[in-house]
């Protein structure tokens, strides 16, 4: 019964896209259009919601942001332990020089985004307001490390073998730029019994507003695909499939056109549905395989990587360039449409500079880092850009206020909307009552925190908020039990 409702909503959703379809009609040839039609559209089967797409920055070109006078580079820009600073106060550094070294397994290297002198190593508040270790660098000119190839030529030929590519990923500090910043080299370090069949490239970009992947594909199509070829060598997979939602028709066309030059890369358009870009949902949509509870994608022979990660992988392998830039969509309802832009920023640029460049409109109620569904409201605007900060969204006053919370109606919309087949209303209640054993039995650890339940709840209940607390506590309980 609830499924029916979801389907109805979908048809409303499709009505919102014609402007983009019109854009497609003028630019893309008939043959290419029929090629794309032949590919069909897939999606995942369980749950999902349809937030308003609002891709305001879809056709804005990437703008290079001016270099900051002082950069603050956090040592925790990835999932896992902080990197260890290997420079000292007063040291001269060049662009791309290693300044933070990964000394544990779950860690990534950090490189200097600007050239200059190390001012100090200090604890500096990040966007949440909590202080994190960081290196402060005063800029002097823009001198790059000699080992980095700064020419704009596209290098097609891949000289490195599998082990060398993985070592390069680790050395250049490559992390997943989809949002979670998971160190990429760990994904490719497979055990002997594991085999990767498909490399799934995530270009779904299902979060509203964000257009970073779309623009990277359009402006750097060939580099992205060479990056995928490199990842294919590293993973040992035979085929790579790019999953992309069909609200990016020009990007799909560009990829399909360019894929003709590459033998083992395919494009798979996807129907619009949130959270299509979540790892497990994307695998389900593209291959039809279900990742078991608590397992990683490799258990069904897949590795999932974001397309922007593929672009930085190309830069790392072919040009020896580490991640020193972030591609950030600046968009939102309170911002005038012409101000919705995508910036190529050096890491460590003050967020204030970006805000001053676009100007904070009066109506802004909240600024979010990441998408509106999963992102985090910025509590401290005096923080600095980090790896994987894919967007800065300006929400207007009306949007940023939570509605009044009403008692649960038992309507079951959250159950129908949950892409993991969980019962969010129940998990919320268990978490609230601190019944973590019951949380575990009800599968709280499978929650991907996508926020579909909170989005769809007609009573405005803070479902995902409580589930997150419950998940953290349940996880701690399970770890304590396993340690015994």
């Amino acid at each position, binding site marked *: 019964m609830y499924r029916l409702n979801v389907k109805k909503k979908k048809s409303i959703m499709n009505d919102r896209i014609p402007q983009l379809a019109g854009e497609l009609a003028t630019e893309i040839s008939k043959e290419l259009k029929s090629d794309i039609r032949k590919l069909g559209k897939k999606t995942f089967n369980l749950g999902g919601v349809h937030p308003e797409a609002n891709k305001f920055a879809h056709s804005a070109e990437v703008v290079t942001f001016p270099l900051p006078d002082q950069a603050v580079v956090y040592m925790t820009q990835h999932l896992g332990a902080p990197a260890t600073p290997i420079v000292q106060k007063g040291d001269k550094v060049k662009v791309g020089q290693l300044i933070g070294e990964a000394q544990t397994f779950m860690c990534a290297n950090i490189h200097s985004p600007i050239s200059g002198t190390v001012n100090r190593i200090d604890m500096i*508040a990040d966007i*949440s*307001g909590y*202080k994190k270790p960081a290196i402060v660098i005063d800029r002097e000119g823009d001198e790059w490390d000699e080992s980095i190839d700064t020419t704009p030529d596209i290098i097609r030929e891949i000289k490195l073998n599998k082990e060398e590519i993985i070592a390069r990923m680790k050395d250049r500090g490559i992390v997943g730029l989809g949002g979670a910043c998971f160190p990429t080299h760990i994904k490719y370090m497979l055990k002997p019994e594991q085999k990767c069949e498909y490399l799934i490239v995530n270009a779904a970009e299902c979060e509203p507003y964000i257009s970073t992947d779309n623009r990277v594909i359009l402006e750097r199509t060939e580099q992205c695909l060479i990056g995928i070829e490199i990842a294919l060598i590293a993973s040992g997979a035979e085929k790579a499939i790019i999953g992309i939602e069909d609200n990016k028709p020009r990007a799909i066309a560009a990829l399909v056109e360019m894929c003709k030059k590459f033998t083992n890369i395919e494009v798979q358009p996807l129907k619009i549905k949130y959270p299509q870009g979540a790892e497990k949902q994307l695998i389900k949509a593209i291959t039809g395989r279900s990742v078991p509870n608590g397992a990683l994608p490799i258990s069904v022979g897949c590795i999932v990587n974001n397309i922007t990660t593929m672009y930085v992988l190309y830069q790392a392998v072919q040009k020896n360039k580490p991640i020193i830039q972030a591609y950030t969509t600046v968009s939102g309802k309170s911002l005038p449409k012409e101000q919705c832009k995508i910036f190529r920023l050096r890491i460590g640029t003050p967020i204030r500079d970006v805000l001053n460049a676009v100007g904070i409109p009066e109506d802004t109620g909240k600024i979010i880092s990441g998408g509106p569904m999963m992102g985090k409201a910025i509590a401290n605007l005096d923080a600095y850009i980090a790896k994987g900060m894919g967007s800065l969204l300006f929400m207007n006053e009306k949007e940023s206020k939570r509605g009044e919370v009403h008692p649960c109606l038992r309507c079951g919309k959250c159950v129908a909307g949950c892409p993991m087949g969980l019962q969010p209303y129940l998990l919320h209640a268990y978490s609230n009552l601190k019944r973590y054993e019951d949380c575990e039995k009800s599968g709280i650890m499978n929650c991907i925190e996508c926020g579909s339940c909170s989005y769809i709840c007609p009573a405005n209940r803070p479902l995902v*908020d409580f589930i997150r*607390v419950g998940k953290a506590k349940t996880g701690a309980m399970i770890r304590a039990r396993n340690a015994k």
Partner: protein
Amino acid sequence: MATTTILYAALTIGLIGMIAAIILFFVSKVFHVEEDPRIDEVQACLPGANCGGCGFAGCRAMAEAMVKTMDLNVAYCPGGDYDKIGEILGIKAEAREPQVCVVRCNGTCENAPAKVNYDSAVTCAFANSLYAGESSCPFACLGCGDCVDACQFDAIHINPETHLPEVNEDLCVGCKACARACPRGVLEIRNKGKNNRRVFVACNNKEKGAVARKNCKAACIGCGKCAKACPFEAITVTDNLAYIDFTKCKACRKCVAECPTGAIHAVNFPEKKAPVAAEAPAETTTPAENA
């Protein structure tokens, strides 16, 4: 006809009852659990609120643990009749000071003005995982009231004006349930002190003085003046934060007069000790020199 029906029914039910009684008798013999009768006696000496403040699941679990280990100090229950428990177990109970909860934060809306507005699930645990707090002090009270929910004695409430919890000293039993619930360790259980008079540092901030002061006017800046002023060596300064050891403190209030930010609170003292307050400004002419 009617009498035979009643007779048969009564006989059948009686027979079933007897068979069941015999089975139950043997089962109770075979599966008999030997339980220390002292557990029940000890449990009767505990308050029976099952508040969980001691860290056990309830009063019975704590009584079991006491009897099993023959130790009165497995956990502390402020409502327990320790003299009687000691008698039952044959151990002498030590004297304990009555304790009370204190709030080690004075980040009121005035002292620590809010820089951001929080609009999400109202629990401290969740707010703590999201951000540093409305005043940007990462050690301050978040004011969402996890301690209020944890208290089984209705002794702690959030003051709507200051957004800080306030403890009702008459109702607080010092069970530590609130201190356990607080994600930032703002609440501390201290000895009540003589005549309920006690002196404590109402700040939990371990940042450097200048940083702490930026977010909150009433923050401890770790200047160490109080430690120098204390004649009983009760005050130590670690990580830019002063701490008054309640076992050594004699409540002389010399430190209160010394503190340049007013972070040291003295409660339940009579008001008319004007000379002490008058001396204070003269001694602290340059309050910011150590900031």
